């Protein structure tokens, strides 16, 4: 069992987490004309890096999405950051 840190709930079992997507992808502005190639790149292209990665994960028990930084070879967790801005 691996322990992942949820920024809200703290360290929890890996089974409570779900990988969502690579971080940093920006949806193209679909109100403007967008080419097939750009749309395909947005939909399908992945960096799929070996080593340090930044990803969006969900902690399913609290349903919060957050950024998880980890090593895709060793599985070491390097940090987790909330995506939500402070409510205050």
């Amino acid at each position, binding site marked *: 069992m691996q322990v992942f840190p949820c920024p809200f709930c703290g360290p929890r079992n890996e*089974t409570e987490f779900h990988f969502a997507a690579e971080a940093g992808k920006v949806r193209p502005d679909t109100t403007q004309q967008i080419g097939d190639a750009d749309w*395909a790149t947005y939909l399908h292209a992945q960096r*799929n890096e*070996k*080593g340090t990665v930044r990803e969006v994960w969900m902690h399913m028990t609290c349903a919060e999405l957050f950024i998880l930084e980890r090593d*895709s070879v060793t599985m070491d967790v390097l940090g987790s950051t909330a995506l939500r801005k402070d409510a205050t």
Partner: protein
Amino acid sequence: MGAYSAWSVFREGLRGGTGWKQAWRTPTPKKHYDVVIIGGGGHGLATAYYLTKNHNITNVAVIEKGWLGGGNTGRNTTVIRSNYFYPESAALYDLSVRLYEGLSRDLNYNVMFSQRGIALLGHSEHDMEILTRQYNAMRLNGIDAELLSAKQVQERAPILNFSENARHPIHGAVNQPRAGTGRHDAVAWGFARAADRAGVDIIQNCEVQDFIMEGGRCIGVATSKGDIKAGVVGAAVAGHSSVLAAKAGYDLPITSYCLQAFVSEPLKPILDTVVTSPAFGTYVSQSDKGGLVIGGGLDRVPSYGQRGNMPVQETVLAGLVEMMPALAKVKLLRHWGGIVDVTPDSSPIIGPSGVDGIFVNCGWGTGGFKAIPAGGYLLAHLLATGEHHEISKPFDRSRFETGRLVDESAASGIPH
């Protein structure tokens, strides 16, 4: 180096095996080859072999960063089948099954292809409706298939759980009789030996570090053993396709995941077919040595670490014990993980990479082993002619732009 035969085995048995020669050379790389293939796994070695056999191109190098067949070729569950839904997939995977059928003779190397069938289990009336649909699709695609009743499944695999209290009772199955298992290492070694005999240089322990570009075209590779120029480059590096793509400057719609597999201690023969259960997410066959070879779904975390995580192990093995409760006390002998390249439609990418001078054969996901002869055959065709073979055309990377995907996500019954 002579051909292998029953006679040579007998003769070497008499003289203590002293007459066996190395099966392939260990050459120093030349400065230039007509074709350089990156990746000395099954697909890369098969590509080299079919270049020599079908296209008479022998000035070929296969470059491998580790040892032959040390990646996914040596890490799979050796299942060979073509029970797919779409005609494009059936044509592709059945080419592979047909090539496997003649492969031992073709290579003069016993790849131990045992056509013991693969039964995909149905656990409810609704499952049986979907399996009937799959059966019909297979028949329409010209693939052998049979729909089995629960009784027929029980006759073939009495070890399965037919108890009334079964968590997922067995209602029947769809079977592909020509499917089966092979000997994974023998496939890599057989292709390596046959390619080497035809003049191909197989260069192990040689990592491709960069691509040599000239006027926007790739003209060779920079390796840990020096620069090697190439007329054309083929990449068949399952598990590292994106890493290589980043070096060459093309992008791929691939996510790499770990797929785990398990083998049990050797048992007396209890199962002479391959059994897959989508409900449990587990499939199993028994090897000639008696070990149960067990596989399941992917770890749902992108990974390059060749080892799996515990929750998936638990799911797969719990499924096995529900399928065959008699195995509850059986011990595992080994367990391993391989990195598989998964595409959005679970179909491979075969064709031009997007960078001039480089062709790719990747994205086979969890099913690369069964496709080795076809992958090699089709990449060889591309490298030799620069054009798609009719069978590889639908698997060009352009499908992600046109939207004409070949979505086989559900074909094997195991999500991938």
